[in-house]
Each structure stands twice: as structure tokens, then as C-alpha cells.
């Protein structure tokens, strides 16, 4: 790996643009308004007839029209998940006031997270294979399914020829990409498009998720996803996510950009292999400690924690324990606005970072909806039902990826 350039060791990465494609709002403004209003995007699956599936509620981005939001030449060769990512990236670039054509092409980088790849596209092509024959399978299947497709298409669309990559660590990947983006800013990149989306709500994609046994089987969208509640029964899957524009602070301010906030600290850990007869152990707490240490802040400086909020009792308890160990019981406001979107996998943590930055900007903590009977075993100061006023200077975002990934990222006021 390239050594940091001497003049970039002290890089302070800031976020100057945000683009959101979420089940409860398309575009940053619509999403943030809905989130503060406690407006949920969860509902019965409409994309296909899910009546006979064991999971029937999801967070669909219903307002999104692929043909309206993505140029047709790009749309035909990409999956719905990439469409959501391309649209979010375009919004983020506009928001940041970045004109890619004016920047050196090798200094623009793209790093996105993906968890499922292009399952809907893949399902369509597999159906053609079975029903019509191999000659009917489109050539774009070769590139559309691939985890790096969103990154690649963003790179091509805007002529961003700097370092590009994808990180697949399920929900944690949405934070891991921010750390990778930061690393690239310390090398040769001037701006990085980063974040993530996922969209796997076709039958094939949903069935793959159901296999974990952790999805909510409930039909009532208001009672389906209740993290940290005594009535928790699994999580609701969703689609969408967020893309961010990350730049080095001095350069960003020199071009007149107004940062939402800075990426101040990051930590990532992996859980130990589960052992028969032993309770699973979580290293999430150590990820939190690493992020705070790197940022040089104490637990008392943190104004809010955006929880991973898995929605299954064991995972919720493990996360609550990690938070309470670092911050003390009921020691910090905790929220999970993803109760309004479902878990968006690679898009979820990226959206939480966007939400945390908006929280810092406006000095308000968005609510966790649906939770009525907070589990006393969790010992969390959960921000419920309505937003709580700030100030919010430091916001910690947590994410866990299926299989043992943990990540924590601290965003701070600009």
C-alpha cells in the first residue's frame, strides 16, 4: 500500500455532499423531514406477491423510478441496487457542488459498500435461462450482478479514474468504506465518492436473507421491527442507502464547500468464532473504544449513538451491553432511525452516517419508532417516538455485519 504523503498525514476528512435513496424519503431533504417526523417507510412488499413467503414486510423505495432517475444507457446494464446508488451519488455530487469534469481524473476515487450485489437483475436473467434458453441471457448479466458494479459505473459515468473499490462486510461495510475513503485522501485522492446501497427485495434476494432466520415474520409494519423492545422478533429488510462526498478539509474549504462534519474516528473488530456450549462473544465494544481513542474524545463527549439495532433479542442485548460498558448504563442517548427504513445492509450504515451528519448540522436527534416496551435488560437511553433536541457535536455510528464484522465511526461537527 502507498505510504501517506507527508503533507497529508494530518488530513481531516470532511463530508461535503450527501445523497439519500431511502424507503421513507428520496433525496436528503425528504428523508430527513420524514425521519424527524417519525414517518416510516416500512410496508407490505409490493414488488412481487409475497403472500406465501414467511417475510412479507420490507422497506421499499417506492417513489424511485429507474427510468426517471438513471439514464437509460446506464439503466439497462445495471441492477436496481446500482440505480439507487447512481442516483444517490449524483445527488451527493450536486449537493457538494463538485463538477467532476473540472477535477483531475486520477484524483477522484470511488469506494462503495455492497452486500447482495445485483440479485434482481440476476433473477431476471436466470428466469430467461430456464424458460427461453442461454441465448436469451443478456450480456449485461456479466457485469450487473457484481458487487463492484455500482462503484465501476459511478467511476465511468463521471470519469473518476483514481482508486476504486468495493467493500463487502454486510452492514459494517457502510462504515468500512468511509475508513477506506479517508485512507485514499491521505494518499493521492482529492475527493472520494463513498457510501453504499443495497436492494435485494426480489424473491431470490429475499429468500437468501430469510435463510438466516433473523428476519421479522410479522405482517404489521408498525410491530415488525422493534429493536431493544421486549417484543423484538427480528428485523425488516429494506433497500436503498446513501452516498457521501468526502474531501480533505482544507481543500474543501478552499473551493468554498460547506462541510456537514468530519470523520473523526473509526474502529473495526471481528467477533471470535462461536464455540459450542458458549455464549457468542462480541467485540463491538472494542470497536467503539478504538473509534473514540482515535478521535481523541472521551465517552462523555459523545452526544448520541446511532445503534446497529439488529432487532433480534440476542444481538440487541450484545449491542446494549457494549454501549453500556463504554458509556455506562443509560449513559448516552441512543437512537435507531433505521426502524423507519428497515436494515439496508451495506446501505444502512452509510445512511446512518448521513443521518448522524444531519443530526450534527441541525442539533437534533431523530427518533426510534415503534418501541413501546424497552427491554430493561438493555439499559439504554433510547430516543423514542419524537426527536430530542441537541446540541450534537459528536455522533457515533455502529454497524455489525452478518458473520462477525463490527465497525464504529465517529462523526464530529465541522
Amino acid at each position: 500500500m502507498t505510504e501517506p504523503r507527508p503533507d497529508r498525514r494530518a488530513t481531516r476528512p470532511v463530508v461535503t455532499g450527501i445523497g439519500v435513496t431511502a424507503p421513507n424519503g428520496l433525496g436528503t431533504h425528504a428523508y430527513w423531514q420524514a425521519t424527524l417526523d417519525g414517518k416510516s417507510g416500512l410496508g407490505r412488499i409490493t414488488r412481487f406477491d409475497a403472500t406465501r413467503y414467511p417475510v412479507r414486510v420490507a422497506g421499499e423505495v417506492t417513489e424511485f423510478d429507474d427510468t426517471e432517475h438513471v439514464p437509460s444507457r446506464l439503466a439497462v446494464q445495471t441492477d436496481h441496487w446500482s440505480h439507487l446508488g447512481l442516483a444517490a451519488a449524483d445527488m451527493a455530487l450536486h449537493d457538494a457542488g463538485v463538477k467532476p469534469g473540472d477535477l483531475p481524473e486520477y484524483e477522484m476515487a470511488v469506494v462503495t459498500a455492497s452486500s447482495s450485489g445485483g440479485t434482481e437483475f440476476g433473477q431476471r436473467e436466470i428466469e430467461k435461462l430456464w424458460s427461453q434458453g442461454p441465448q436469451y441471457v443478456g450480456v449485461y448479466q456479466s457485469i450487473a450482478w457484481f458487487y463492484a458494479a455500482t462503484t465501476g459505473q459511478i467511476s465511468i459515468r463521471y470519469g473518476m479514474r483514481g482508486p476504486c473499490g468495493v467493500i463487502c462486510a454486510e452492514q459494517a461495510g457502510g462504515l468500512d468504506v468511509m475508513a477506506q475513503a479517508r485512507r485514499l485522501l491521505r494518499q493521492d485522492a482529492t475527493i472520494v465518492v463513498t457510501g453504499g446501497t443495497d436492494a435485494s427485495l426480489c424473491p431470490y434476494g429475499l429468500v437468501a436473507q430469510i435463510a438466516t432466520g433473523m428476519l421479522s415474520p410479522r405482517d404489521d409494519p408498525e410491530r415488525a421491527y422493534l429493536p431493544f423492545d421486549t417484543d423484538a422478533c427480528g428485523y425488516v429488510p429494506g433497500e436503498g442507502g446513501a452516498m457521501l462526498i468526502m474531501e480533505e478539509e482544507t481543500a474543501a474549504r478552499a473551493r468554498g464547500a460547506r462541510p456537514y462534519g468530519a470523520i473523526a474516528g473509526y474502529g473495526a473488530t471481528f467477533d471470535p468464532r462461536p464455540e459450542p456450549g458458549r455464549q457468542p462473544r462480541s467485540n463491538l465494544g472494542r470497536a467503539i473504544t478504538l473509534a473514540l481513542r482515535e478521535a481523541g474524545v472521551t465517552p462523555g463527549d459523545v452526544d448520541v449513538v446511532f445503534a446497529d439495532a439488529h432487532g433480534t433479542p440476542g444481538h440487541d442485548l450484545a449491542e446494549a451491553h457494549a454501549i453500556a460498558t463504554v458509556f455506562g448504563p443509560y449513559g448516552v442517548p441512543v437512537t435507531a432511525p433505521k426502524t423507519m427504513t428497515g436494515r439496508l445492509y451495506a446501505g444502512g450504515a452509510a445512511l446512518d452516517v448521513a443521518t448522524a451528519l444531519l443530526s450534527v448540522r441541525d442539533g437534533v436527534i431523530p427518533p426510534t419508532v415503534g418501541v413501546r416496551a424497552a427491554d430493561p435488560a438493555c439499559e439504554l437511553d433510547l430516543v423514542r417516538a419524537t426527536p430530542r433536541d441537541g446540541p450534537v457535536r459528536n455522533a457515533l455510528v455502529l454497524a455489525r455485519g452478518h458473520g462477525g464484522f463490527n465497525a464504529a465511526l465517529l462523526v464530529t461537527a465541522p
Partner: protein
Amino acid sequence: MTTFTLDDMRRIMGGCAGVPESLDLADDIGEIPFTDLGYDSLAVLEMAARIQQELGVRIPDDAVDEMKTPQAAVDYVNRRLAA
């Protein structure tokens, strides 16, 4: 006898490969190379696959390589149809 026209080609191009943002398919595009129109080799391969399904003519891969422009594709297909 069936003939394959430039309008048929336009329909196939837009249908399976989309329309580049700067392009109007209704323009006089017959002699402009696909690459200049904004269609890469993968796009031309996809067009060839759709033509084969629609008309039942076989288009070998090396013939696809020779279809540099929409008109060249139309001419090739008509030669195959006449053969």
C-alpha cells in the same frame, strides 16, 4: 421477403442497450460508429443477440466485430436474410 431497416435497428438499440444522454436515435446515425454514438462492444453484442432472436438469423461473433455502424449492422442482416 423480410427486410431489416435502420428503424428496426434504432428500435433494437434503444430497447436493449438504452439511449446515450447526448443521442437522439431519430437522427441520421446510420454511418456513425457505435463507439462514437456511445455504445461499447458489449452493447453491440447485446443488439446482435436480440436481432438473432427476432429474425432467426445467426450472427457469428466475428460478424459482430465487423458491425461498426448501425448501417453496417442493417446491411449484414439483410445479406443474411437474402441468402
